[in-house]
């Protein structure tokens, strides 16, 4: 097992190396010359040549890449042309925790809604409850987050006035107010996952309930709740983890869209505004950071399988 983990880690490092080369080339391919962008109005051929040399842009690209990678690893990600703030601080200390909070909150909500809804639908298969749950789940998972967000703001923010429509408060500064502001975005983002989780729970539970060990457990006289919650649900956790793991890209896609709709200053917002402002250094940092995060979470999800299903450990 340790050996498998080691080879997996090695493979991950390799992927990250390729990812870093791609991110490095992204900045080279991006339109516009960084030197003239940085100099702005103070542009002169002499100043440009000096800055090119200072930035090391006249050196061969493998050297430039290593220089950039070295800086990246040490947290030296450059400064933003527009706000003149440190990109590392901006991305890692300010934007990333916000995106993580939003995603975690949505996922938690989706699990709390999706699993019970899926269970009820599976146990009342074919009935009206099943029909309602299945329809809402499909709608929830297919609805574009950015449009759902607009509708929710309109109904619950403007119409009913239950939630603030604008602004963002960091939950670690003022927890209650922060949660109040995050509620609508979390519902928006969570709807996608809640639908997906409900659908997966329903279909896997129906599948599992047909197995003979369920009939055996019931024949032993075990109460229904125990049969479902202990015997059956344990086997539903695997496909559920698979779906959640596979759809992490979907969570991030939704997070980006939700952040833009609600003007939440997370990673998605950072990257999107950076593209619009042609701040490719910030875009590059955002790309690297999300890829890094994505790869690590995928690694984690893979390891979770072995923890969830003891049968996989002996391989």
């Amino acid at each position: 097992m340790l050996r498998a983990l080691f080879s997996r880690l090695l493979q991950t490092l390799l992927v990250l190396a390729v990812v870093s080369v791609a991110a490095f080339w992204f900045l080279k391919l991006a339109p516009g010359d960084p030197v003239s962008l940085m100099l702005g109005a103070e542009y002169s051929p002499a100043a440009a040549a000096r800055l090119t040399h200072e930035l090391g842009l006249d050196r061969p690209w493998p050297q430039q890449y290593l220089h950039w990678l070295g800086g990246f690893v040490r947290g030296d990600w450059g400064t933003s042309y527009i706000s003149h703030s440190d990109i590392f601080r901006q991305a890692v200390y300010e934007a990333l925790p916000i995106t993580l909070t939003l995603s975690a909150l949505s996922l938690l909500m989706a699990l709390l809604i999706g699993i019970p809804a899926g269970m009820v639908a599976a146990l009342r298969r074919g009935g009206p409850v099943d029909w309602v749950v299945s329809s809402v789940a499909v709608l929830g998972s297919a609805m574009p987050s950015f449009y759902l967000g607009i509708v929710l703001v309109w109904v619950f923010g403007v119409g009913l006035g239950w939630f603030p429509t604008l602004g963002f408060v960091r939950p670690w500064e003022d927890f209650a107010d922060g949660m109040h502001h995050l509620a609508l975005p979390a519902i928006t983002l969570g709807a996608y996952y809640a639908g997906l989780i409900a659908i997966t729970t329903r279909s896997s539970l129906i599948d599992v309930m047909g197995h003979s060990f369920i009939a055996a457990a019931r024949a032993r006289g075990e109460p229904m709740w125990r049969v479902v919650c202990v015997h059956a649900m344990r086997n539903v956790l695997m496909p559920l983890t698979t779906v959640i793991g596979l759809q992490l890209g979907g969570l991030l896609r939704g997070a980006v869209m939700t952040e833009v709709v609600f003007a939440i200053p997370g990673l998605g917002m950072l990257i999107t505004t950076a593209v619009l402002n042609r701040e490719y250094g910030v875009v590059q940092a955002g790309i690297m950071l999300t890829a890094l995060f994505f790869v690590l979470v995928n690694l984690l999800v893979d390891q979770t399988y072995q923890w969830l299903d003891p049968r996989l450990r002996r391989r």
Partner: protein
Amino acid sequence: MTLEQLSPAAAASAAAPSPAVRRPHRWWRPILRERSAVVGMVIVGAFALMALFAPWLATHDPTLQDFSVALQPPGADHWLGTDSFGQDLYSRLLYGARFALGIGVGSVALGLAGGLLVGLTAGLVGGRVEWALMRVVDAILAFPEVILAIAFVAVLGMGVDKLVYALAVSFVGPFARIVRSDVLQVKSLPFIEAATLMGVPRLRIVLRHLLPHVASSLLVQAGIRISTAILLESGLSFFGLGVVPPTPDWGLMIAEGRGFIAMAWWISTWPGVALALLLVGLTLLGDGLRNALAPKSQGG
């Protein structure tokens, strides 16, 4: 390689798991038995017809701006109302179906072609080539598709064609991985070995024997990806990173109507409902197809 060449054989392999039995006339039966597939097909079909006949169904030029009729509620002249530029929403909605489906199908088709090329090469050649190709695919897959698409839009610029390329690139990775794993599975089956031993040329084995077996699971995947592509396309356009105004794109229309939602709800509601409906239809169709054609295929 055209789809016509692929589909009969693909369908046969789907209807009958055993490759020896060919029943080309009954392949649609399992699909019609899936209720969600039928509902999805009806919804998607309706949108496809809207897209196809948009020029005949439309009452106005979708990009004609007329400020004298700006922000009109739905009525006799403008069936679904007008936006802040006085553009007719009904006509824009129809043409919007063209952009949504066109960009969705186009980018998935391009991504599928790329993935097929990479996956086939990796699966068939093997060795170092496979190793290197799959590491590149791993790296592409390390980027969430939305980030990849945004990055490519940043490099390529905006517009319909560039959006298609950006989305296509983000789909090459997943398709390549699926094709490769399918190829590896099929490659070891006895009938491929038999064909090789009989001296059938390699390319012919790939085209006639291998591809049809991979095709059904691939088509299901493609169907599912189209909804992702449309979601991304409209999302990027909504951010202002996709197509440029005044293109009648649903994402763009939702973004335009957002500021007017309190006084002119209709501007963003129609494209929003259309988009949600199309995505629901595609999801139902994709799930139904998966259940009917490839019951135990790769999830997601």
